[in-house]
C-alpha cells in the first residue's frame, strides 16, 4: 500500500504534471460544467441498434480533462476496482497525449473501451471523485474520458499489442471467454505461457457478446480486444465445454498445468409463480441471446424471436434495462419495467435508466408480478400485478418491498421477460465433486491468488461472485493470472 502511495506521489510530482496544474487556476477548473455526452436521438435510436452514446469530441475531452484538479490524494482511485491511475490518464488527455492516456489505462485495465462504456461509474470512481465528495458538485466524467482515450487509440490504427515474454511452452487452460477469462488470458500470454481459451458457445466474449446489446456495447469493440489476444498468441477453442467435451483430467493428460475458470453466472432465475412457463415468457438470457448472439430479429437469420406489442420486463438491473430497450427496438408499442422496489434501489447503471426513459420505456416501480394468464394456445396474454411499498431495510441494506393488500390488478401483455438475477453456472462444479463451493454454488477461492480448493484450479468473475460486473470479473482474471504464474513457477522450481 505504501509503495502505491509513494509511486503516485512521485508520478504526480513529475514536471509535466506540476506545470499542467499551474497552467490553470483551480477556480477556473471547477467553474467549468461537465460535458454532455453526444447521443443519438431517442426517438430514432429506439427503432435501430446503433450505439446510443456517440463519444466525446477531442475538444470536449480536453475540456473535461481540465476539470480534474489532479488532487494530491486522488480519492477517485479508491472507487476503481482495478486501481486505474485516474489522474495520470486524465492529465495525459489534457496535454492531448491521447495515446499516452490509453497506455496508462492499459497498465491496469485490459479492456478500457469496454469498461468506459459499461462500468457503473456513478457507484465507483465518480462517486469518490473530489467533486462529488467534497464540493457536492457533478463529478469529472471519468467513464467518458476512459472511453474516449480507448476509442482514440483504436481509431488511430496505432493500437499497441502488449509484448509477450519469451515462450515458456507451459500450457494453461482458460474456461470461459467472458471478461474474466479474456483478462486472465492476456496476462498469462504476457508472462509467456501457451494459453488456450475454451468457450462453450460459438462466439468469444461471454456476456459482452450474448448479453449486452449492440446499442450499448458494439461487438466490433469486443472483437478488437479478442483479435489483440490472438495476435499475442492466445488460442481459442469455441464449441468446447470443459467438463463435457473433455474433462479437466483429459486436459491435464494433454499437458495443461493449471486452469482459470471464468464460467460466469449463466443460470437464469425464475420467480416460480403460476403461469411462468407459458409461451411468450422468457428469461432475459434467452431473449437477449436470441437477439444478440443469434441475430433473431434479422429475417436473414434462422433463429426466431417473438416481438411483442405489449412487453413487460421484470427486474431493475442492467439486464432488465437491456431487455426492455431491446423490446422497444423490436417494435413493441408498450415496453415496461416492472420492479418491486423504487428507482433509488435500482441496480442498473443510472445512465441506462435515463436512456430508457428517453426512449419511451414505462416504469412501473413498486410493482410485483403474481401470476400470468394465457390464451387457448398457451401464449401469455395478461398478468396479475401487485403494488408494493417500502418497509424496513433488509440484509442488503435496501428497504424491503412489502405488498399492499388488495392492490392487485391485471395488465395485458403478450411478451414477458424475467430478469430477476442469475445463479452460478453449475457445469464446472457438477463435473468436479472435490471442488469447494458455497451454498449458492459459487466457487470458493483465496481472495489474493484466486486459487480454489483444487490447487491447479483458479477461478474468478461471476462464477466466484455471483452476478457482478465486467470490471470486477476482469480484475479477478488478472489477479488469478498472477496467482497461477506464482503457483506454476513454484512447481517448476520444485521439480
Amino acid at each position, binding site marked *: 500500500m505504501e509503495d502505491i502511495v509513494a509511486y503516485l506521489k512521485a508520478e504526480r510530482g513529475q514536471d509535466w504534471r506540476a506545470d499542467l496544474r499551474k497552467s490553470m487556476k483551480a477556480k477556473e477548473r471547477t467553474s467549468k460544467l461537465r460535458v454532455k455526452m453526444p447521443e443519438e436521438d431517442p426517438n430514432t435510436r429506439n427503432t435501430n441498434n446503433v450505439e446510443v452514446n456517440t463519444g466525446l469530441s477531442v475538444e470536449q475531452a480536453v475540456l473535461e480533462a481540465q476539470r480534474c484538479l489532479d488532487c494530491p490524494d486522488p480519492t477517485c482511485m479508491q472507487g476503481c476496482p482495478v486501481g486505474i491511475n485516474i489522474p495520470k490518464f486524465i492529465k495525459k488527455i489534457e496535454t492531448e497525449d491521447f495515446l499516452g492516456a490509453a497506455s496508462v489505462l492499459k497498465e491496469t485495465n485490459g479492456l478500457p473501451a469496454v469498461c468506459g462504456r459499461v462500468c457503473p461509474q456513478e457507484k465507483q470512481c465518480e462517486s469518490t471523485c473530489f467533486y462529488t465528495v467534497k464540493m457536492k458538485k457533478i463529478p469529472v466524467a471519468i467513464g467518458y474520458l476512459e472511453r474516449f482515450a480507448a476509442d482514440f487509440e483504436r481509431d488511430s490504427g496505432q493500437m499497441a499489442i502488449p509484448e509477450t515474454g519469451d515462450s515458456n511452452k507451459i500450457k494453461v487452460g482458460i474456461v470461459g471467454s467472458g471478461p474474466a477469462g479474456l483478462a486472465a488470458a492476456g496476462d498469462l500470454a504476457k508472462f509467456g505461457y501457451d494459453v488456450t481459451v475454451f468457450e*462453450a*458457445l460459438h462466439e468469444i466474449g461471454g456476456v459482452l457478446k450474448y448479453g449486452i446489446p449492440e446499442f450499448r456495447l458494439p461487438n466490433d469493440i469486443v472483437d478488437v480486444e479478442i483479435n489483440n489476444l490472438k495476435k499475442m498468441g492466445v488460442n481459442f477453442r469455441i464449441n468446447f465445454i470443459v467438463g*463435457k467435451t473433455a474433462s479437466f483430467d483429459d486436459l491435464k493428460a494433454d499437458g495443461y498445468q493449471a486452469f482459470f475458470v471464468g464460467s460466469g453466472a449463466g*443460470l*437464469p432465475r425464475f420467480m416460480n409463480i403460476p403461469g411462468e412457463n407459458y409461451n411468450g415468457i422468457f428469461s432475459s438470457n*434467452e431473449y437477449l*441471446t436470441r437477439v444478440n448472439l443469434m441475430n433473431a430479429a434479422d429475417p436473414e437469420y434462422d*433463429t426466431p424471436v417473438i416481438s411483442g406489442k405489449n412487453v413487460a420486463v421484470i427486474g431493475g438491473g442492467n439486464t432488465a434495462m437491456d431487455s426492455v430497450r431491446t423490446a422497444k427496438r423490436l417494435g413493441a408499442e408498450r415496453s415496461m419495467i416492472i420492479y418491486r422496489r423504487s428507482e433509488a434501489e435500482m441496480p442498473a447503471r443510472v445512465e441506462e435508466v435515463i436512456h430508457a426513459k428517453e426512449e419511451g420505456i414505462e416504469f412501473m416501480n413498486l410493482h410485483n408480478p403474481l401470476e400470468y394468464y394465457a390464451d387457448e394456445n398457451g401464449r401469455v396474454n395478461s398478468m396479475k400485478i401487485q403494488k408494493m411499498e417500502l418497509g424496513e431495510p433488509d440484509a442488503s441494506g435496501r428497504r424491503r418491498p412489502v405488498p399492499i393488500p388488495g392492490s392487485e390488478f391485471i395488465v395485458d401483455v403478450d411478451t414477458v421477460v424475467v430478469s430477476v438475477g442469475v445463479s452460478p453456472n453449475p457445469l464446472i462444479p457438477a463435473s468436479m465433486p472435490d471442488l469447494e463451493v458455497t451454498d449458492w454454488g459459487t466457487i470458493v477461492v483465496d481472495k489474493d491468488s484466486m486459487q480454489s480448493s483444487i490447487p491447479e484450479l483458479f477461478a474468478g468473475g461471476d462464477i466466484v461472485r455471483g452476478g457482478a460486473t465486467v470490471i470486477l470479473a476482469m480484475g479477478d482474471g488478472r489477479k488469478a493470472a498472477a496467482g497461477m504464474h506464482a503457483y506454476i513457477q513454484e512447481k517448476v522450481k520444485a521439480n
Partner: protein
Amino acid sequence: MNKILEKEFFSKNVVQIVLEAPEIAKSRKPGHFVIIKMGKKGERIPLTIASADAAKGTITLVVQKVGVTSAKLAELEVGDSITDVVGPLGEATHIENVGTVLCAGGGVGVAPLLPIVEGFKKAGNRVVTILAARTKDLVILEEQMRAFSDEVIVMTDDGSYGKKGLVTAGMEEVIDREKVNLSVVIGPAVMMKFAALTTKKYNIETYASLNTIMVDGTGMCGACRVSVGGKTKFVCVDGPEFDAHKVDFDEMLSRLGAYKDQELKDYENFLKLQTA
C-alpha cells in the same frame, strides 16, 4: 467445423450422418446429445447422438427433416462440414441391470433410443423394443435394434408393416404377457404422453427423453424448461431424461409450438427457394 464422413437416407425424410468429432466421440455416453449450427446465420438445434466410434473419432446423428435446419442438414454431402457442433450435452442415461426393459421409440425418436437399447442389453437386461411409425417407409434402424434387443415389435398406424396399431398397443401386449421392470420411451411428445399414461396404469417406472426447443444447451437460457412433478427443470442440463409419469406433457406440447407459425413460414420459404 466437423466434416461429414458418411450419409445415408433411411427414408425420404430421415437421414443418418456420420460426423468427425473425436473429442465428443470419446466423451459421450448413451442419452447424450449435441447442439449443431449451420453457417453464420443458422440456428442452434439439439440432436441426440445415435452412436459413436471413439477409435475412429466419429459420432452418428439421425435427422428427420422437420424445419429449415434439418432440411439444410439433409442436403449436405459427404465431405461438407457442419459449422458448429458442441457436446456431449445433458445427463447420460442411468443404465443398470434391472431385469426386463421395455423400450419404445416413435418416429425419429428411434435414433436416440438405439444407444439406450444397446446400453441396457450390454448391462445384462432382457430388452424388448417397440418401433412405431406411421407407415412402413418410416420404420428406421430396425436391423440395428434387433442386434441389441431380445425381441423387436414393429407397429405401424396403417398396418403396412408389422402390426397395425399405436405404440401403446404394442406396449400393452408386452406388459400383459410378462413382467416389465422399467420402460424407456422416446418420440414425439404426444406419443410419450400416451406411452407414459399406459405404463402408469401398471405402475412401471418409466423414463422419457424430452426434445424441447433449445438455444445454448448449457443451462444458460431456460428455453428448454419443462415442469416435472410441479417443478421447473431445464431439459438440457437436468435431462434430457425424466420420470415420464411426472412430466407435464401438455405444457411441453404447448411450448414446442411457440414458434410454429414463424417456423412454418420459414420452412415454406426455404422449400420454395429450393424448388425455384
